[in-house]
């Protein structure tokens, strides 16, 4: 019976993918690679075919790449129906239908949700709408911001010194544009990598001429009489004049369209099992709805079965491939998605890469190189084991540390390593900010069940 169904699904089933970006595209390619011959529909809210986002905050802002030409390379033909520029607005799990903004409905046998995240906007709407206020997530955002940067702004103000904010600041300095960065935490990248590494990042900012303000919040954006942003007000009472403001406060997961659908979706993403099958809001796994990419949050054995949401390029691909495989495979053939989180950034000429989940780390050891030289590998420890590592201009060693993480190697790191300096012999506190105080958005969200995610209303059945 089940085998028959699967056979028919592979031959003539209908698969719908909501989200036409990296994860959606790779999933579609994998489905075709693995022999899915039925109909494939990709739904995307942007009018563009899938494009690559990492260059948007790097090469594009530097003018080294055209934002209109960062299409993702295609691995193969996918022979899909594209519904671009039309967001999905609702899901009917019973009828197996996705409703679109234009009123259309698309039926599916299997659904993959890969709607990703969007930039968190400035919370005060009138201020957010001032001319010159940007976020940076989409191609259109990048086109607009790049145009303003080319026009020679007097000063760019970046709110939030996470990875994206820091990359924007770096791109400004590279082009000689005055830039101020405000960060609520004590240092840039502190939320993602902790205060010790954050101090290195702060030095990078300052040495490159960024006006870095830490431990402050932006309280208001001020516009002029014709609605252009002209100044930024900070919690320490200072006012900074700026004609471009980039709001870089992390991301919000695109799950609103699932409200009321019965799926386990909320502000932290869509919960799923290790095989990418979505949970409904009662915690029961579905078998026809799968999730992948930034919007998914799945339990990870290496990290205490915490639900992880990862805004990571590599994770989107790996999870999409796993989800696609599992969508058309019998249960005995399904694979778990047990990706070791990995993330990279490039700013102020320094290559930063992390593996594992640094924010889970309590202590830090610099096992190779030195903080002062900004070339090092730092290892994060959690309850006696290695939980993450980060490198500045030292990427080639990370594979080793990734294996240490995978095998639960002990922390502190006692064995000798090449280029170990005296400073790296004893662990120090990694100095993460209090997690209850939001800084900029993290790139790894450790999201065990949060009661705030969704109210579970238990209504006893009546006989």
């Amino acid at each position, binding site marked *: 019976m089940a085998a028959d169904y699967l056979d028919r699904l592979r031959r003539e089933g209908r698969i719908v993918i909501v989200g036409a970006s990296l994860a959606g595209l790779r999933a579609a390619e994998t489905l075709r690679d693995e022999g899915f011959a039925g109909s494939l529909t990709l739904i995307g809210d942007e009018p563009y075919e899938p494009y690559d986002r990492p260059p948007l905050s790097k090469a594009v802002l530097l003018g080294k790449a055209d934002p209109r030409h960062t299409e993702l390379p295609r691995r193969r033909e996918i022979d899909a129906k594209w519904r671009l520029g039309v967001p999905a607005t609702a899901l009917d799990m019973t009828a197996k239908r996705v409703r679109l903004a234009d009123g259309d409905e698309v039926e599916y046998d299997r659904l993959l949700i890969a709607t990703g995240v969007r930039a968190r906007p400035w919370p005060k709407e009138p201020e957010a709408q001032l001319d010159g206020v940007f976020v940076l997530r989409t191609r259109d955002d990048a086109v607009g911001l790049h145009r303003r940067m080319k026009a020679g702004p007097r000063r760019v103000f970046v709110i939030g010194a996470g990875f994206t904010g820091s990359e924007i600041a770096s791109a400004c300095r590279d082009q000689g544009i005055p830039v101020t960065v405000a960060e609520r935490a004590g240092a840039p990248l502190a939320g993602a990598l902790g205060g010790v590494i954050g101090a290195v990042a702060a030095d990078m900012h300052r040495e490159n001429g960024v006006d870095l303000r830490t431990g402050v919040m932006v309280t208001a954006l001020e516009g002029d009489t014709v609605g252009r942003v002209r100044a930024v007000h900070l919690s320490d009472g200072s006012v900074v004049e700026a004609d471009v403001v980039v709001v870089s406060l992390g991301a919000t997961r695109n799950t609103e369209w699932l409200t009321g659908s019965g799926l386990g979706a909320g502000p932290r993403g869509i919960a799923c099992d290790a095989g990418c099958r979505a949970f409904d809001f009662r915690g029961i796994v579905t078998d026809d709805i799968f999730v992948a990419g930034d919007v998914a949050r799945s339990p990870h054995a290496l990290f205490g079965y915490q639900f992880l949401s990862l805004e990571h390029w590599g994770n989107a691909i790996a999870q999409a491939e796993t989800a696609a495989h599992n969508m058309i495979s019998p249960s005995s053939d399904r694979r778990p998605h047990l990706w070791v989180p990995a993330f990279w950034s490039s700013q102020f000429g320094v290559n930063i890469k992390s593996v594992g989940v640094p924010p889970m780390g309590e202590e830090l050891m610099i096992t190779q190189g030195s903080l002062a030289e900004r070339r090092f590998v730092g290892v994060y420890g959690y309850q006696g084991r290695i939980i993450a590592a980060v490198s500045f201009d030292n990427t080639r*060693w990370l594979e*080793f540390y990734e294996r240490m993480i995978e095998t639960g190697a002990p922390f502190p790191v006692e064995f000798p390593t090449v280029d170990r300096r005296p400073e790296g012999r004893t662990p120090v506190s990694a100095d993460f900010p209090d997690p209850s105080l939001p800084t900029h958005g993290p790139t790894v969200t450790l999201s065990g069940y949060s009661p705030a995610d969704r109210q579970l209303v238990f209504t006893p059945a009546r006989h």
Partner: protein
Amino acid sequence: MTQASILRQITDYSNRANPYPLYKELLKTPVLQDEEGGPYVVSSYWDIKGLLHDPRISSDAANLAAAGDDQAGIEETGLPPSFIRLDPPEHDRLRRMANSAFGPPHQPRRIDSMRGELAQIVSDLIDGLGDQRQIDLVDQFAYPFPVTVICRLLGVPREDEPRFRAWVDPLVASLDPDTRESATAEFRKSAQEARMQLGMYLAGLVEERTKNPRDDMLTDLATSRGPDGAMTMMEVLSTAVLLLIAGHETTVNLITNGMLTLLRHPDVLRRLREDPALSVNIVEELLRYEPPVQLVPQRTCIADIELRGVTIPKGSRIWLVLAAGNRDPERFQDPDRFDPDRGDIQHLGFGSGIHSCFGAPLARLETQIALTELARRLGNPRLIEDPPEYRPNAVLRGPRHLTIAFDDLLP
């Protein structure tokens, strides 16, 4: 019959033409120490890959000497060790400075802009074959091509090749474990002497460049002042010696192994003739299937390392047999098949980690152009001798001669 140790069989010249059955045998004991006090030989793909990224593994010549390889001292006299024999931070500093003269981000186009020049050198060499219909590919093509290229890139006069070859040969021989094993004090001395002589020869050129800078790497190495400062004269020389040798000794073998493999796989040769774009994948598959650097014998571990249940004690020498890892069935499907259509050719041909081949972009481009042009221009090429005569070296493996015949030269 006494079975010679696998290690000795690998270094034994009689197995040079086809060492792959031995590697297969070796893979049955992926972590092997088959002689008391000898090196630990690691042959499986994932283990090698892991060790190449393992900060408990040292490439420092001094550690190697302490581990009992007394040949390690060849680089110790006269010139300081080149970055290939150093650990970070010194390795990183020197490689970074060398790279700023060679590749991205500082010289993003230095290699790619040579494309036309490389194609011209290749055309000239093929045109130069004239009416000959039988050639030794090594002497007449695979050797002169990369030598010409590295000479131009560094700024070494091409006509000096016979001079520096006399110094390069003993240095290359000293890399061979068999030679090292049986080396007399005299041989060691001559290798040290050769390195000094080569260094002094280059010193003359560098001195000239300091006075009259040109657009070449010797000038850049000698005169660049980056964030790391400048190289000392001695550092410039040991870097230049390294680049000069590594810049051609390996590419000769890659091109020759490549043509040999193509002639053994005429269907692929035919496809390459019709579709030059296939050369990219062909070269990658060659680096997996017949890598010029077969093994890396110059590593020691500075901590105990456990691998597949074997504890390799701190201070041991480690050999990484890249060519065996490249044909590890745990990693590659049907590993003994030459198949440029493999979707996944993540070979170890250029190593991995911080010491991964410095010249990889150049070696790739040279070989792609060389094989494409040979395939296009030689009419009905065929092997005269199979297997051909090999060079003695077990580390840098490749044919000494490769005699091929063809019907005509296409324009």
